[in-house]
């Protein structure tokens, strides 16, 4: 009778985590910043149609880095979760915390039970009345949830970008300034800011009456970055 190979659980988890991290590191990064006028999400994304940043609900946005089909699937699941909850209860009852928990459960389950973990990192952002009420949930491939303040960076070069951003971020930035800052830190510590055609920008506008998500693109983005 053949004996199955023994592999320690630590080793299994480590292998899976390494696998997921490698996949994520291959992709481009994304930053989210709280500003006076709302939450700004800036991603390096040359595609005009395959989005990394999306609307989930009235005041909630989603962003993902890593494998497109995986975070797109998670985005759709999030929209379904939010719309079902809003339809069953009320629009006010849909919040980022509940959604972040659901994502954490799903990612955690996939990480431990499935053949391969998801190679993604995701962000669930919710804009509030003021920056103090803003919420940024950064969720990792294994379901780890981090409740971030002021700004957060997702993706392969997260550490170095976060360092630059930490030095340059200020409280109470205007929306335009936050988009510019996001675009410039994505270019790397000493490189030039990324050009508009390499960027995808989504904002959650604090003053919006209902659906706060707005995609800044095309001429609007060029004008904003050029000003």
């Amino acid at each position, binding site marked *: 009778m053949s004996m199955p190979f023994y592999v320690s659980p630590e080793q299994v988890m480590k292998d899976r985590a390494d696998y997921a991290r490698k996949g994520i590191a291959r992709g481009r990064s994304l930053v989210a910043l709280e500003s006076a006028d709302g939450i700004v999400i800036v991603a390096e994304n040359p595609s005009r*149609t395959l*989005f990394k940043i*999306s*609307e*989930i609900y009235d005041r909630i946005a989603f962003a993902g880095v890593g494998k497109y089909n995986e975070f797109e*699937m*998670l985005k*759709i*699941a*999030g*929209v*379904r*979760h939010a*719309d*079902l*909850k*809003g*339809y*069953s209860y009320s629009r006010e009852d849909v919040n980022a915390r*509940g959604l972040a*928990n*659901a*994502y954490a*459960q*799903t990612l955690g389950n996939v990480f431990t039970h499935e053949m391969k973990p998801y190679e993604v990192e995701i962000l669930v952002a919710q804009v509030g009345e003021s920056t103090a009420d803003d919420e940024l949930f950064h969720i990792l491939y294994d379901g780890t949830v981090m409740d971030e303040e002021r700004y957060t960076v997702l993706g392969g070069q997260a550490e170095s970008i976060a360092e630059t951003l930490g030095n340059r971020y200020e409280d109470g930035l205007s929306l335009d300034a936050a988009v510019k800052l996001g675009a410039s830190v994505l270019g790397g510590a000493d490189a030039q800011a990324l050009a508009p055609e390499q960027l995808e920008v989504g904002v959650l506008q604090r003053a919006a009456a209902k*659906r706060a998500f707005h995609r800044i693109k095309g001429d609007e983005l060029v004008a904003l970055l050029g000003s």
Partner: protein
Amino acid sequence: MNEQRLPVFAAGIDPGPSFVELLRRVQPHDVPGAGAVGEGSGLPITHGTTVVAIRFADGVVMGGDRRATSGFTIASRRIEKVFPADDYSGIAFAGAAGPASEMVKLFQTQLEHYEKIEGEPLSFEGKANQLSQLVRGNLPAAMQGLAVVPLFAGFDERRSRGRVFSYDVTGGRYEESDFQTTGSGGVHAKNWIKAFWREGLGLDESVDLALRSLFAAADEDAATGGPDLVRRIFPTIAVVDIAGFRMLPDDDIERRAEAQLGGREEGAGL
């Protein structure tokens, strides 16, 4: 619903961008029309009455009176029958108020859900067809007396003009070239609009025409509410044009309504 689990589906049973299909998979008991009990049961059912939609030069105007009846009783004096469907369209209903408000909510969610999943909004035709399916889904309830007959109208961004669709209880969908009404006072309102409508009507004239047609309906139909000068209740009017959907503010409608009073009803034998 299970709060902790994300709705993820295998390829074969994925509901796609349809919220109604999604609801059918996860919460089938919440799909409107399931387990209908209607007038056959002898229970009182609240009905909304007259709504109108008029195309004008730059878009459409939609209006509804404020009365809901239950048999011969006035169930509500302040019910609203005109709602935004999305940024560029509106829905107005006549018929059983309960199923109608449920249908409105489902339709709004459906349009927004599609837009978020697909990344772009449905075409105007697509929206009209979606509503058609919802009305058809309500047919079993309609057979028991819970009919809902909506009007769907808005600004078609691709064609750059206002469009009006009407429906019958079976989900039949008809595009109207200029205007349509529905509900118990609909025929009176329609006659009034027919007499005064012309191509290229302006916004102000169309709003006044919508108000006037609702007053005319209230004059002839007991289930349609007229201008209530004691409680200061007037019809609700929405405008959809290139700037999107907006409800007219109460004071604007009040001012317009007052200007219309004492017109044709006095002395003309109407």
